[in-house]
């Protein structure tokens, strides 16, 4: 099943297409873990059928953008130092 994700950006220009990005994204999948975050390497596209998952965008003060994207999560990035895991 396709996953639903959301990202906060100050400017839509942060979501450049055609290259690998590292973003903090949160899951919008229903369930207990909805709205929890992870850091991930991703690709995004304005073509909604380009990648299997969908990405919703919010701006700096939480405003929902009307721009939608599809997203591919390439891999999760763990920034938390090892001693705290």
């Amino acid at each position, binding site marked *: 099943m396709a996953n639903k994700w959301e990202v*906060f950006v*100050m400017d839509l220009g942060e979501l450049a297409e055609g290259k690998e990005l590292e973003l*903090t994204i*949160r899951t919008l999948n229903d*369930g*207990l*873990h*909805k*709205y*929890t*975050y*992870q850091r991930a390497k991703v690709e995004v596209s304005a073509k909604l059928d380009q990648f299997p998952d969908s990405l919703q965008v*919010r701006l*700096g*003060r*939480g*405003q*929902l953008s009307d721009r939608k994207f599809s997203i591919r999560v390439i891999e999760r990035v763990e*920034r*938390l*130092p090892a001693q*705290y895991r």
Partner: protein
Amino acid sequence: MAKISAPKSNREFIDACVASGDAVRIKQEVDWDNEAGAIVRRCCELGEAAPFMESIKDYPGFSYFGAPLSTYRRMAIALGMDPASTLPQIGAEYLKRTNSEPIAPVVIDKRDAPCKENILLGDDVDLCKLPVPLVHDGDGGRYVGTWHGVITKHPVRGDVNWGMYRQMMWDGRTMSGAVFPFSDLGKTLTDYYLPRGEGCPFATAIGLSPLAAMAACAPSPIPEPELTGMLAGEAVRLVKCETNDLEVPADAEIIIEGVILPDYKVEEGPFGEYTGYRTSPRDFRVTFRVDAITYRNNATMTISNMGVPQDEGQLLRSFSLGLELEKLLKSQGIPVTGVYMHPRSTHHMMIVGVKPTYAGIAMQIAQLAFGSKLGPWFHMVMVVDDQTDIFNWDEVYHAFCTRCNPERGIHVFKNTTGTALYPHATPHDRKYSIGSQVLFDCLWPVDWDKTNDVPTLVSFKHVYPKDIQEKVVNNWADYGFRGAKK
């Protein structure tokens, strides 16, 4: 002092509020995703009874209590007073109790502590097991801490701090929060932990007794455990944490233990705040790593939904900031007749009544107010004379519009300390807590001749002889007006 009979726990407080009609039991299932927040927000904006939501989607056994102290009636109940008590009566009681002898807390055995009924450690720790609400649509996350206490201790001085620092769930083991550099916790971090690269133990207590929450919210120099005891008239019960040496209120509903990381930050915000806005964007902020969760059976999570007036963020902070400033000014011998913040100012305007007995008294008040620990939380001080009723906005507004000289009565203080939440501040000033403040001096100058220079106030109670006033009031209905207006 007469025996105080105040609710000792969040549960006793809910029962008292339900009994007086100041809380409503909601039996039908409520969604933690926006719906609970929307209910609380609407209650705040309508001045409604507090919602006690007994069935939460996905979280059987848990409940929510929203808007716990967003009315003066519930504040009176929290203090064990008649819900119909007036604001000056509630304020006088707060001052009486907080000027009494400190009451030290007692530490009880873990087996007697309700907050230890369920203990999650190791791989069982997951914040998603708690019904953490999405308070406002568009918030940066689900907020664990909206009405709570973050408990820390300075490792050298031993100062215990219970502070209300908002906390967002980032993932199941991580929270991030807004901790201003001028706050007690902010100073402890920058003074000790961050330079040493050491983690700061913390415990977040949710579902506190209303007086413990009041203490956590109050900008008082008295340590919060003692302050809670003074407000309640008896010692607060504490119990030691599972994973660190901190002590937490034993009757709290939920305890989250862990460490504030010195060298790792995750994003936090945006979040709807007491100013009525989402002011600051998300940013990398103080990060809390969770090691343990303990909670009562059938735990109740408290929710404050801050936004436009009026919620407890405005009401309680206005109340305690005003009264703490009154104590400070009186300690300096200034003849203040009262201090009040109207909650609708979102605790940004301090109104001070004073007997104007010497020149420069308004400036002295402003310098003390802005220069104190309280100062960053408001940016306007308005000083009126003792003939103006500080609780009556009509009178205060009239005094401001007529007595504050544009040239001599308005004094701007630049490069002071502000908060990141000030909507009027620039993004740069918010980021670095740079503030500016203003005094509105609404006093007649002392060097004006009181007979010939000071205008005479033209109002019913000021210009007519007492016998005429009484005659008119007593005959009011006979004149044909509806009701005998006093």
